[in-house]
């Protein structure tokens, strides 16, 4: 019997991609309608918008959706760049997953500040 092949870490990114894809399929359209069309028609004040995030539940929802959308996009971007042979694979992974990681960290930081800051 031959030795089983080496595992890849692809499942981590694939599950994040899948979770983000599920959320964007469920809520993406609604979010685009609300934030892209309804809110700009009568924009709320910054305070009013920020007040929503003071609610811990709203904070959790934002924490789940925003980073997972990033990871969903990152996986698509990575696979597209890889298929286009746009560069060495580790570099492409670093660019796409790195962008999602930075986006995730910034999101966590901002939401944390809004929840617990002043």
């Amino acid at each position, binding site marked *: 019997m031959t030795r*089983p*092949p080496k595992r*890849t870490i*692809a*499942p981590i990114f694939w599950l994040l991609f899948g979770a983000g894809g599920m959320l964007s399929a469920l809520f993406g359209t609604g979010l685009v309608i609300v934030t892209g069309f309804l809110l700009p028609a009568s924009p709320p004040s910054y305070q009013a918008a920020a007040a929503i995030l003071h609610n811990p539940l709203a904070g959790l929802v934002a924490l789940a959706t925003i980073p997972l959308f990033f990871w969903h996009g990152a996986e698509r971007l990575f*696979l597209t760049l890889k*298929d286009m042979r746009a560069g060495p694979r580790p570099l492409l992974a670093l660019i796409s997953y790195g962008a999602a990681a930075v986006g995730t960290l910034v999101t966590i930081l901002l939401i944390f500040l809004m929840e617990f800051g002043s």
Partner: protein
Amino acid sequence: MADRDRLTIELWILRYRPAQDEEPHFVSYTVTYTEEMSVLEALQSIKDEQDGSLSFRWSCRMAICGSCGMMIDGTPKLACSTFLRDLAPGPVKIAPLENFPIERDLVVTVADFVKKIESIYPFIMPKETKPVEAGEYLQTPAQMAAYEPFSDCINCMLCYAACPQFGANPDFIGPGAMALLQRYNGDSRDAGSRERLDLIHGEDGVWSCTAVGLCSEACPKLVDPANAVNQNKTNSAFDFFLRGLRKENHS
């Protein structure tokens, strides 16, 4: 139609005879055809009447043997179930299956594909073998329905010709082998899931797939190999995180 029997169509066939040709090149043949004539029959008429050296694989003529897969106007199809009336007025481009080395004319090398099929333990591995006197391994209709579609694969390799990821990485196990794997892993009489899954956790296993989906479009038997691949991405992903919890029963 008065001149029904005098319909003609031009076929551009990719020829490659290793002893004579520097590289593959298209040769034009014109055939007379009728409404019910398949591409395979056209090739046979060329071989009989115009050029006996034309090589192609075929056997059953009714889409169950999987031998006559080829690129017809750029799409992987079985020559026996593709009809000239649907390709008229032509010319029609006929080439060997994409992503495979050409052996001669429309014949491609299948050794690598066969090796992949063999690698995934393509047989039922029961938990414990029973003596014949103990009777059959019973199965309910619902248990059979769980894997039955995947057992319809005829190994025609159209899905491999359609798959851009197999084209980019010939080591990718590919859609057909994954459908066969699911055929056995989904069988209630089988206990070999662990061994088969262990073969596909790598980069050349299930993770080379990027859900393009052309494999399922190309399949002439509606096997839906993309579904098999996706199910096993889920299986492989869960195993990635839960492997610490699984009970090892290797001796």
